[in-house]
């Protein structure tokens, strides 16, 4: 791993600078750092493990050759993920109908990091979580993307806007609408 003189890992911006000057190893560190998130974003869009992997890989290659156009000082992650999104969307749109996987909650009810609940409470929560994921899976594509980026991939509103290529206001209003729909669905199911 390339580290700075002080031994700390280099930041994305420093690795981008090195990669721009032809340091492929520096770029591979960026790949290592972002490949999981890239594949998850692609999966949310394609709902296919294989397509998500292809889209992410292709995006990393394209991003490398596009580094010359990358504005120095801007964050690398959303810029990269925008390319991933485009790749994934292209695949979805050119693909013929095929089975799509839905996201699921883990079967194992391990504590989610909050205070350990009672077994009954854990069961209720697990059931509620499953219903919530099902409800999100039933949303329209754009609502699902917005919710997944914001709450499941831990991206900020600004990052979500950049990655999906939407104006920030659109992300805000779409999230509000999607949350409203989810709430209605959850309440309807009681």
């Amino acid at each position: 791993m390339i580290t700075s003189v002080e031994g700390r890992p280099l930041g994305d911006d420093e690795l981008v600078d090195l990669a721009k000057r032809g340091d492929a190893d520096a770029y591979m560190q960026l790949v290592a750092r972002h490949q999981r998130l890239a594949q998850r974003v692609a999966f949310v869009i394609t709902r296919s493990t294989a397509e998500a992997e292809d889209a992410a890989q292709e995006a990393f290659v394209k991003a490398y050759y596009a580094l010359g156009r990358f504005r120095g000082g801007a964050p690398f992650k959303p810029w990269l993920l925008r390319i991933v999104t485009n790749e994934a969307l292209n695949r979805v749109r050119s693909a013929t109908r095929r089975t799509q996987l839905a996201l699921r909650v883990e079967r194992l009810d391990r504590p989610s990091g909050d205070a350990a609940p009672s077994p009954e409470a854990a069961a209720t929560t697990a059931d509620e979580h499953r219903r919530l994921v099902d409800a999100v899976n039933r949303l329209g594509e754009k609502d699902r993307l917005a919710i997944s980026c914001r709450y499941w991939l831990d991206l900020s509103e600004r990052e979500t806007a950049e990655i999906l290529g939407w104006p920030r206001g659109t992300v805000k209003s779409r999230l509000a609408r999607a949350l409203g729909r989810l709430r209605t669905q959850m309440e309807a199911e009681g």
Partner: protein
Amino acid sequence: MSMNDLEHSLTSVGRRIEWPDDADLMRSVRAAIGDHSPRRITLARGLAYAATLAALVMAVSLLSFPGVRTAVADFLGIGGVRIDTDGSAPTPAGELDLGERMSLAQARDSVAFEVKMPAALGPPDSVWLDTGVSGGQVALAYESSPDLPAAPGTNLGALVTQFPDAEVSDIALKKVTGSQPGTSFEPVIVEGEQGFWVSGEPHVIAYLEPDGDIRNETVRLAGNVLLWESDGVTYRIESTLSKEEALAIAGSLD
């Protein structure tokens, strides 16, 4: 359930999503990159920039001789031509992210709407289909010629784009032009239909999608954009031409 509770639940669910195992892409990406460097591209652009600068310096010094001025201005087509200052080499249509290149017949077979041709411009130099746009987007690219000055940074003089299912809207345009200094738009009537003339080298324009969302679209050529809609198809002409010239091209669409 309150909105806060819902957001909280969504966040906790996020920690427990069963994501598919991610693949290690290191080997495949490394193989694809090989020993290519993105630097080469930058270097080539730098050289092209230097060449442009040299030509500009020469042109400007020639222009300072009054007798030569008119002749050189005619030759360079100054007025229509602007010098590219961002340092990139002229970009061919293939690098403008227009989709897949194909014949006009193939493009016509691939979309459900009728692809029209601007008689005023004649047959295009290349035809592109972008399937990333819902319903398909067909772009007709015209290389620059004496009558059709190249847009800065490219070898193209005009780009005529058509696609279905979007609405040309002043609300959408107001939103995006407001954030781009020097850019403005005005309503125009194109062949009896409501359209807009967006000038001042806009970088982004916008449409309304059927569900009311605003879709932003990057303008490919630095120049002016004529935008209108007719029979459910949205048309866009990008060029460095004047409003009147763009309207004439629009009027020749058949």
